[in-house]
Every structure is written in C-alpha cells, then in structure tokens.
C-alpha cells in the first residue's frame, strides 16, 4: 500500500524574466513503512519535491496523493488539516517554537488537534521524548539545547500525532557527523519499531546506508533508485 503517489509532477518557478524548472515530470510511489532517501546535489529539486509532498508548496501540474487524498485540489484549510493529522515535519534548522520547552514543543501539534485531555497529551509527549532519549531535558527551551537535542525534539514532535508520513529535509545538515548519524539511527529505529514512513532528503552519500530505499534526482528529474 502506498502512502504517497506522485504522477507527472511539474514545478516551475518564475525568476525574473526566466522560469526555473524545479521538477520536470516526477512520478513515484512511497510505500507505507518506507525509509526513503531522496538524494541529489544542491538545486536538484529534492527540497521542492518534499515541500510539495508535505503540502507546503503547490505543484504547477501533476498529481500528488497523500494518504489517498489528492492534495493538488485541496483548500488551504484542508491542506492545514492534512499536515496536522497525516504529516510530520523535521526541518534542517530544527524550527522549534523558541518560547516553548522541549516538552511543550512536542505537545504543540496535539494541542492544535485538540480533543485530548491535557494529561494524555503530556503523557504522550513524555513517552516520545523518552523514546528519542532526551526526557531529562523536557523543561529546557530550544536555546538551551544542543543541535542534536533540538533535532531529537523535532523528531518527537513530528511523531507525536502518529502521522502517515514524516518528511525530513536534510535533517543532518546542521549537525556534526556523529550527531547526524545518531539522528539517522533514531529515525531508523522509529521506522522499524513504529512502522512510520520516513522520506528524507540529503546530499551526503554517507547517509544513504540508513535508508531502505534511495531515489536519485538531478535537474528536476528522477535518475534512478
């Protein structure tokens, strides 16, 4: 069963008087439980691909289905709902809410969802922080955490809503190699233990050994797996 189905995806950006062809007819499927890496040099289109799959950018043409929903025809409100309930994000620069503690950052998507008791939300967030190994830092604000610790919080936040898909755009780019590897191992563990589908982009070939599937992209086109 595929979590994501992409067909003939095209994305063009206007840039001055010219048009940048970021994606040129990409078609691919991401099966449930995948740990997929999108590899390519800078400017190859991997971030654009993740953005469109993650419903934060719109395609010029083509079709993208996430969890069975055709995202290209959804309204802003429906896309927001989809992101909240079915997709988790891990950003290159961690992007945590600076005024919330590690625990509160993990709770944040659940509180946006609503419908759960405060105790239940807290308990779930604690479990995830424990799972990513930083429960001891639950009361620290992002500024008080190291890069690796922040990315672990970001992973916990991405997983807290039990999404169908977690997207990570170069999650190790701002980490030293040792910390980066520990983050990848963590994602690998979460994939194996929870069955969460991960799709992450990287331009580091060392990272590839953690991926079950690898998709290569160059000049906006898939060039082989």
């Amino acid at each position, binding site marked *: 069963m595929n979590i994501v189905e992409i067909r003939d995806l095209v994305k063009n950006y206007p840039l001055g008087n010219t048009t940048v062809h970021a994606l040129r007819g990409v078609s691919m499927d991401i099966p449930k439980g995948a740990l997929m890496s999108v590899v390519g040099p800078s400017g190859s289109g991997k971030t654009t691909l993740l953005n469109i799959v993650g419903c*934060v950018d719109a395609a010029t043409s083509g079709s993208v289905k996430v969890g069975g929903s055709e995202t290209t025809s959804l309204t*802003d409100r429906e896309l*927001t709902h989809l*992101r909240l309930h079915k997709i988790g*994000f891990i950003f290159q620069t961690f*992007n945590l*809410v*600076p005024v919330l503690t590690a625990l509160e950052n993990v709770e944040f998507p659940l509180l*946006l969802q609503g419908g759960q008791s405060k105790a239940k939300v807290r308990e779930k967030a604690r479990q995830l922080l424990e799972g990513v190994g930083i429960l001891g830092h639950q009361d620290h604000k992002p500024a008080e955490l190291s890069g690796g610790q922040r990315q672990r919080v970001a992973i916990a*936040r991405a997983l807290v809503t039990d999404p169908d898909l977690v997207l990570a755009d170069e999650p190790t780019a701002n980490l030293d190699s040792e910390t980066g590897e520990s983050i990848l191992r963590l994602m690998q563990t979460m994939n194996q233990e929870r069955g969460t589908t991960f799709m992450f982009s990287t331009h580091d070939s060392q990272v590839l050994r953690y991926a079950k599937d690898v998709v290569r992209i160059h000049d906006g086109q898939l060039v082989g797996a």
Partner: protein
Amino acid sequence: MLVWRLAWRNLWRHRGRSLVVGGILFLGALLLTFGNGVVSGMADGLRRQVVESFTGDVVVVSDKQVDDNVFLSMMGKEVEPLTRVTSLQRLVDSLSWVKGSLPMGKNMALALHETEGSPGFVFLLGVDFQKWQEFFPGAFQVKAGRMPSPGQSGLLLPTGANEQLYQTMGQVFAPEGSVDTLLLPKDARGLSLESLRHDLVLMGYSNTMSASDQRLKVSGLGKYSSLNTIWGHFAICDIESYRSVLGYHRQDEAAKDLSASQSKVLASDDLDALLSDGDLASQEIVGPQATGNATTGEVDPIWNLLLVKIADKTPEVAAEELDSLFRQRSLPARALSWHQAVGVIGSLALLIRGSLMGFVGLLFVVAAIVIANTLAMSAMERASEIGMMRAVGATRLFIAKLMLAETTVLAVLFGGAGILLGACVVAVVPHLGITTGNDLLQMVYGGEVFRPLLRPMDILLCLLELGAVVGLASVYPMQIAASITPLDAIARD
C-alpha cells in the same frame, strides 16, 4: 489557553518591542483618559456655569422672536415680550422630564446720566429674586449690600456691568454702606466713597415705545459665581421694576381697563403703520394678545423668557418636543436649546468640545497606526517561526488569534495602567487648584478651577476606545501574520 501562553511568552521574549508598543499604549491610554476627563469636566462645567447658573437647559421665547441668540445678541436687540406665560409654565411644569421652570425678563436698558455725561447701558434681567435664587442657587455672590427681599425693589449690579458703566458714564455705582474697593472698577478705586452713586436711572430699550425712566436703588454689588466676565454684564432687578423700565407694566395695567379693540391697538408692534393710516379704530391689528387670559380673565404679566431645567433628555430634543406641544396648543412660543440661546458662547463651547474630542480622536488614530506598524514589522520578523507553526498544522485563524492575544495582553497591562494613572491624574488635578480668570479657559477648565472629571461611563468609554485602538491596530498585523505560509519559513532557512 495555548494561544495565551504563547502570547505571554512571546511578549516576554521580545521584551524590548513589547515595551515600545506597551509604552505607546500606556501613553495613549493615559492621554485618552485625561482627554476624556477634560471633555467630561468641560461638559459638566458648562452645565454648572451656563445651564445651572444662568440659562437653564431650554429657553422658551415668543414665537415672534426672530433671533435665537436672546442672551448675547450684539447691541442688545430687543427680546420680544413673551405672553401667556402662566399657560406656558403650567404646560411645561406638567411634563415628567421637566425639573423646573422660571420666567424672566431680559432686555437692554440705557443708564441715564443725571447730569450731562454720556449714558451707559446694561443688559437687564427682571426676576422674582426668591424664585431666581431657588432656580439658580449660588449663581450670584453678593459682595457688598444685599439681595433685595421678596416684594422689595432693587438692583443687583455685577462688577462687570459696573466697570462698563464707569467706562461709558464715568460714574461708579455701589450699595449704601461700606464697600471693598477691590470690587470697584480698577481705575476708580482711588475715588472717595462719597462720590459713589447708590442709585441708577434706567430706561428700557424696546420697541414698545412705552418705556420710561425708572430710578433703581443699587441693593447689592457682586459677582456671578462663574463666567463673570460674560454674565457680569447682566444686572438683575426685581420684575416689577423691570416691567416699569421696559414699559410692560403700564401696558398690562392699561389692558385691564381698555376695550378689546383698544388692547389690540396697544398690543400692536407696528404703531407707526397704524398712525399713518388715519382711522385708528378701523385698523385690523395683528399682534400678540399680550395680556389677556380668556379662561381666567386674569391679566397674564409679560415676561421675555421662560427658562426650563430638564432631565433625561438633550436640550435639543426637549426643545423640539416643547415646540411641538406649543403648536398643538396654539401657544405663542417656541423653545431654544441653551446652545442656541447664548449664541457665540454655545458655539464656542461646542467648538472647544469638538476640538478636544478631535484631539483625542487624532491620538487614537496615531496610536493605532504606530502600534499596527510595529506589530506588522514584528510579524514579518517572525515569519520563520509563524511559518513553522503553519507547517506543523496551525491554521491562519490560530496565527491571527495569537497576534490578537499578544496585543490584548499589552493593552490590558499597559493600557490598563495608562487608564488607571489617567484616572488618578483626573482625580488629583482638581485639588491642585489650577485656576484661571480667562473665560475661554474657564470653559475648558469647567470653572475657575481646572476640574477634569471621570464618571463610570467615561471610564467605560476609555476602555471601549482602548479596545477599538487594539482592534484597529491588530487588523493589519493579523492579516500579515495569517498570510505567512509554511514555505516562507522554509524559504527563510
């Protein structure tokens, strides 16, 4: 709850910016509160100085009275005689929203020089002293001499009128007995007390052609409690003397003995036209049935004005309703609001009040623009953070609520403090004894002492104004923040 927690912590995180916006809100709220206090104090002061000391809320005049400005018309143009005052007063007093009414005579009188000097003039009010004092308690402070007793004739001369008479006639008037020289015109303080005159010969300045000169004893010298520079030109005498001066009394008495046609002739305003056309008896005279009361057969004495104090209505609305009633009952009168009756003073009061409110409004708009601009810049600076929230599932509404919550917290803390301090300043200022002798400033001050005033309604108005500033200032930043997309966060990275 999440929104408020985030808002509070964001404000604390960006303390510098919060202080700037908060400072503007504090200062704005302080000035709004103080401004409202001044406007309210002025309204209250005007009420005390004009409505409750001199004119009442509504002034009823004859339907023949053309000029609305019956108190302060230039050159003292005659105020038409008001007839059927008993019926008018009975009708007015029967209305539930009328607190009371007082008939009054008001016109101009020449002050005749008894030797060879130039005459002077005074605005003359004719009143029943006892009723006038009950209607306007404390409005006139007798500094020398005394107020005439009921049934006693006499003249109360304010210092302003005395000054004017001295300027034109070269004579100074005072009651018999000792007089503080400070009450006398500045240039006349060196005069010996023996040279002071204790009575004044007045002659009405009217179209009745029956005015006569009348010697009036100066009973008292004093000041109006407020706006003495303006009201101080109005000397007050008993109504009987007033009618004699204006010729009304003789007209009344004559009417008792004359036939109906003779009464008509005497009541006519246009005696020249009558006399020029030969046969007096054949003339169809159109004029007020000035003195007759068909129901009671009593002679209704002539006045010029009926002053009315009201409750629960604006003077304008009350005047309209009275007009309507007068028309229904064919009463020869019309009603004016006090603003209309005092002419330029009313306009000036409205102008000052309008200016103050305009200033407060301007402050309101400037504060809203500055705050909106600061918050919009703040929203743009936080595009990455807001975009990230949108990426993980925050709706546009959530982001808009967050911005509004941040502004609201600042408004409650800083705006609330501003209102509180403003209220304290308004409470303290009257006790500082900031005084002025300038009549224009007295209108702003609400009296001789600067007396801003805040009623619960004014505080509520301040809160509403603050809420409006916050609402207005939040719209643009909310739009900016809500339009930030998750892609903006990623693009910034």
